[in-house]
């Protein structure tokens, strides 16, 4: 067990190291002198040189990377060129939108997908099952941002139950904040729900075909106990894993959906930063999303290994 955890942790560190290296190099390739961008085209050569020295741009690339990484580890993401604020404080202020949005989306996805998947598996090859399969195919095909636009059209424009966009801070009006995230969460959760419903159905069907289920049935246990106590417990492991992995994807999905609903989250921040060529913000939010995805994948791996000993054993065999 300890070997498994240690190996996974080393892999995590190596991956984070590589991710940070990729982002650092990407932003080094960008044409243009950062000192010139900050001071403008009328800056004197002396001032430019001074700023380059101050920013460490005259150092070798590897030293610059080391300094940047060290700053990052201390939570220093740099300074925004547009907002004239530390990137960290910009990021923190946007998390009140993106994090609840991701949590609400995955909650909605699981809330609808589990009953649908279970129903489809239990009523296999019957109209209800086909209905769920059609729903899941449609959910996979509809782009989240189009779903968002259609939801705005129906619930904001026609019925006027929700606002078409914008966000009210949690501290001021929690209910309005919740309401302004509901439609975006449904848009994002739709695809995830479709994938999870399919996965639940297929895993439950697989579990229901196992020998231990036959044994449970032969012992005379009721069908509900067989399904919910025995089969579903085992079937849920990959479903929970997938739901965890989708949390990572949601961070990236939020970039598009926050723009559809004009939500002041991380996605909107990075999108505006590109148009304003505010590279420290692009770098800071980019690395946060990439790190978030890698760390969530790591946690899912660990949880999967903990609940399913076969994973640990397989790793042992491979190594």
């Amino acid at each position, binding site marked *: 067990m300890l070997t498994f955890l240690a190996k996974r942790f080393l892999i995590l560190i190596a991956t984070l190291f590589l991710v940070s290296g990729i982002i650092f190099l*990407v932003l080094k390739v960008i044409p243009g002198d950062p000192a010139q961008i900050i001071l403008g085209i009328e800056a004197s050569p002396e001032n430019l040189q001074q700023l380059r020295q101050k920013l460490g741009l005259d150092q070798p690339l590897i030293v610059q990377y080391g300094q940047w990484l060290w700053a990052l580890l201390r939570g220093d993401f740099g300074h925004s060129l547009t907002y004239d604020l530390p990137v960290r404080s910009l990021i923190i202020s946007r998390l009140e939108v993106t994090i609840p949005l991701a949590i609400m989306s995955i909650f909605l996805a699981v809330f609808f997908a589990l009953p649908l998947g279970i129903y489809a598996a239990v009523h296999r090859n019957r109209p209800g099952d*086909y209905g769920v399969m059609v729903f899941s*195919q449609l959910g*996979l*095909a509809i*782009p989240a941002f189009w779903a968002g636009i259609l939801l705005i059209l129906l619930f904001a424009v026609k019925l006027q139950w929700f606002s078409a966009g914008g966000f009210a801070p949690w501290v001021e009006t929690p209910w309005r904040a919740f309401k302004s995230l509901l439609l975006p969460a449904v848009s994002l959760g739709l695809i995830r729900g479709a994938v999870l419903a399919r996965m639940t159905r297929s895993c439950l*069907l697989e579990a229901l075909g196992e020998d231990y289920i036959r044994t449970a049935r032969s012992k005379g246990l009721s069908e509900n106990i067989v399904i919910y106590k025995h089969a579903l417990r085992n079937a849920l492991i990959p479903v929970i894993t997938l739901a965890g992995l989708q949390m990572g994807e949601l961070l990236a999905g939020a970039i598009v959906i926050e723009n559809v609903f004009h939500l002041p989250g991380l996605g909107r921040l*990075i999108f505006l930063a590109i148009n304003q*060529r505010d590279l420290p913000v692009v770098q800071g939010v980019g690395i946060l999303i990439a790190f978030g995805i890698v760390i969530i994948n790591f946690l899912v791996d660990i949880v999967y290994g903990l609940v399913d000993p076969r994973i640990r054993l397989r790793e042992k065999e491979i190594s």
Partner: protein
Amino acid sequence: MRLGKVNLNLFLGGIIVCIIIFVAILSLVYTPHDPNRMDLAQRFQPPGGMHLLGTDQYGRDILSRLMEGAWNSLIVGAIAVGIGLSLGVLLGSLAAYWKGWKDEGIMRLVDALYGFPAVLSAILFTSMFGPGIVNSMIAIGIFNIPIFARLTRGVSLSVWERDFVTSARAVGQSNLAIIWHTILPNILSPLIVQTTVQIAIAILAEAALSYLGLGTQPPQASWGRMLSEAQTFMEIYPWLAICPGLAIALAVLGFNLLGDGLRDLLDPKLRKIGSK
């Protein structure tokens, strides 16, 4: 899903994909109107009459723009997945062949690339080279590399242990020749299935990037861009937002169904699970 002996997914998916490919190719030689010609006198025409699906805020014919958008979506999807497939298969094959620390190194790089979903890679690419269709292809391609690399490595590892690989070695074939002539043909089925599914995901990603203004640039038509432009006017002219969305959903549905159908056809083991 099966209906009697007919593989319904393959049948429906095949038809939808064929229609979209046909429309995309047709758009190169024929569209009902010039997709980029503005006619302010014909702004916001409802569907019907001269313009089957109506016109947009510049009086451009929506059907013609959808046809041109189909070509752009397919090209981006095909090239992006081609980039991911070729580099991913190369990395995955080398990892499976080398094993040991080289395998570990490649797989860690692949893990790192997993941290960059298509939209994020595109944003980083755009900040380097500016928005555009080529950059979005590369960005979506990068996102596809780890998917194909992991798949290739996973299925290749077991093929390397098979007797026919030992026989190929015994007759003196080089490792490169074994990979090319023996390993790759044996992992083709899962790769074909994954390619079809990834094209669907690439079409979605291209639409999202164009919606954000990072993908296909005006005046070229793109389904995602059409949606983004429609959002301003959809309150009064909802068909502007409905037509491009339906086109994206249909294309993605077609490739997803085709992928499911091919999986049923090519992999009997998966077929057993899939038909459950």
